[in-house]
């Protein structure tokens, strides 16, 4: 169960850490003024500091926010239900390629997660994979990755 306060604080910490990393990394590019003009790191360095400063303000304000539950168990469950299969789909792309991964992803979410009839889920999955191939690989000449297995099969 996550409160608004917790979420605000976590987000501010995340952006703040990013800002700090940006500022730190920019120092290597040189900050300030040299014979060639403004050094490459100057602008990102200031950007990083602004992110960090703004995040600290947001953190301070966020810690005063409502501590009541913002995301309860049902919401988190719904979020995970969408995000985790999607993440699995992305993770599977390098191995089995976009087409197969997409078909499995659709079939999985429909048939296993939402109890759609198997035949219907299979049809939607197959149509998805084929349309991806037709639209991208054929019509727009964007070769979608086939993954390690696809490459090994020499497709």
């Amino acid at each position, binding site marked *: 169960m996550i409160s608004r306060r917790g979420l605000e604080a976590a987000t501010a910490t995340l952006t703040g850490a990013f800002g700090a990393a*940006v500022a730190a*990394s920019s120092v290597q590019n040189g900050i300030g003024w040299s014979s060639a003009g403004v050094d490459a790191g100057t602008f990102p360095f200031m950007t990083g500091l602004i992110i960090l400063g*703004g995040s600290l303000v947001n953190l301070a304000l966020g810690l005063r926010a409502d501590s009541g539950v913002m995301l309860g168990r049902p919401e988190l469950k719904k979020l995970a239900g969408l995000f985790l299969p999607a993440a699995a789909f992305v993770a599977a792309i390098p191995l089995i390629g976009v087409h197969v991964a997409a078909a499995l992803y659709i079939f999985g979410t429909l048939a296993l997660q939402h109890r759609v009839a198997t035949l219907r889920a299979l049809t939607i999955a197959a149509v998805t994979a084929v349309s991806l191939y037709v639209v*991208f690989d054929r019509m727009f000449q964007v070769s979608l990755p086939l993954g390690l297995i696809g490459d090994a099969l020499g497709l």
Partner: protein
Amino acid sequence: MDNLEALMHGFTIVLSVYHVALMLIGVLLGILVGVLPGLGAPNGVSLLLPLTFGMQPVSAIILLSSMYWGALFGGSVTSILFNIPGEPSSVATTFDGYPMARDGRPTTALATAFGSAAFGALVGVVLITLLASWVARAALAFGPPEYFAVYLLAFASFIGIGGSPPAKTLVSLAIGFAIAAIGIDTVSGSVRLTMGVDELVKGISFVIAVMGLFGIGELLLAVEEEVPVKALAARIEWGEAFRTVARLPRHGWVLLRSAAIGCWMGITPGGPTAASFMSYGIAKRFSSRRENFGRGEPEGVIAPETADHAAGTSALLPMLSLGIPGSATAAVMMGGLMIWGLNPGPMLFIEQKDFVWGLIASMYLSNIVAVILVLLTVPMFAALMRVPFFIIAPLIFIVCAVGAYAVSNSFLDVVLMMGFGVLGYLFKKLSYPIAPLVLATVIGDKAEDAFRQAMLMSKGSLGIFFSNMLVATLVTLSILLLVLPLASRLLGRRSRKTIVVE
């Protein structure tokens, strides 16, 4: 009169079978992304962008801009029939559009919305026709300090009048700048902010950011706040539609005022969402039928719709003439211009006359096409809304992932897009504005270059930003906008104190 002549020339370019076909496709795809939750104008246009790389720039921009108009119309359809805004900018349309449709007048509500939207768009296009080349001519005299000052003003107005918490706007804006800086620095050639990841040397495309922030973020939000869709009957009665449009001039004053608000918010980068809310608020405050707002008042539909489309259209004015996009979608299109090898800004009006006037002429035509198509296809797209969300969500997800991959055939981009999706969800949930981030990602490099060139001119003295009237005014105005939230906060606290004392 030069403008009219140029516009006529533009029409000769646009009126070809190929371009009208692109318009139809663009508008239909636009309505589709406008209707679908999780897909909106900014990421719809980003998805289409990689597919336009082989096209002529003028054809590509006709396709993309038509999609934008279609999306603006599509967003209103779901707002009115389902009480679900398909686009953030049509949230205000739900307030009165849905009650009107629910009380048995769906045709009236839709026709009111489309009629006023078309009027708003028309005002925006006329404004562009009359002003754009004039602004561009003025901007030709701009040097790096003036450009930086204009960028600064654009960013400051987000913070000053954007309506989101200022510190959150600032963080979102600065993250955009940092993302723009990733990769090879165009001035010195050194590699920046890659954090040791070699693949990041090419930088992070704004397309990836847009698809994650808007697409995936929106999906996550939609699934969490999932509401059962209650569809209203969506049959269009043509007689009633025409009668409604014919009745619109009675609300002439509201139409004009809303169009003016929309144009202003579109040119300054307030964007269509802020414009529609502001226009609705003002219409409610000044209406004699104030109690009727929220219960199906026609002016409650007219005000946000007119402003929404006026802002969406006029957002292209600063993009074309200054190289500063007025909305997130305009930012994406501007990124497209740069990819097609055009340089957005005043030189477009001299070097790329065909492109500029072709686009402007197409805006007149495609808005008419959009009104007709959206009226014809309402029943079809309304039926689409009955497809359960759990089927649509993974499909949209796959489309976004493949779209992200197609930008530069990189798997890392897909992973980054997921990251942006989580960020987009957090930002939306906690009311961080996303448009500033997108804008900064697209024009961050240009703003930085302008700053560095100005510094070279002045040998490192910041005094150059006060060296003439124009640049000094712009910079002072920006600083005022930046301190505005702080000042109003302090004043607000003092007035609260006086109330307590009294």
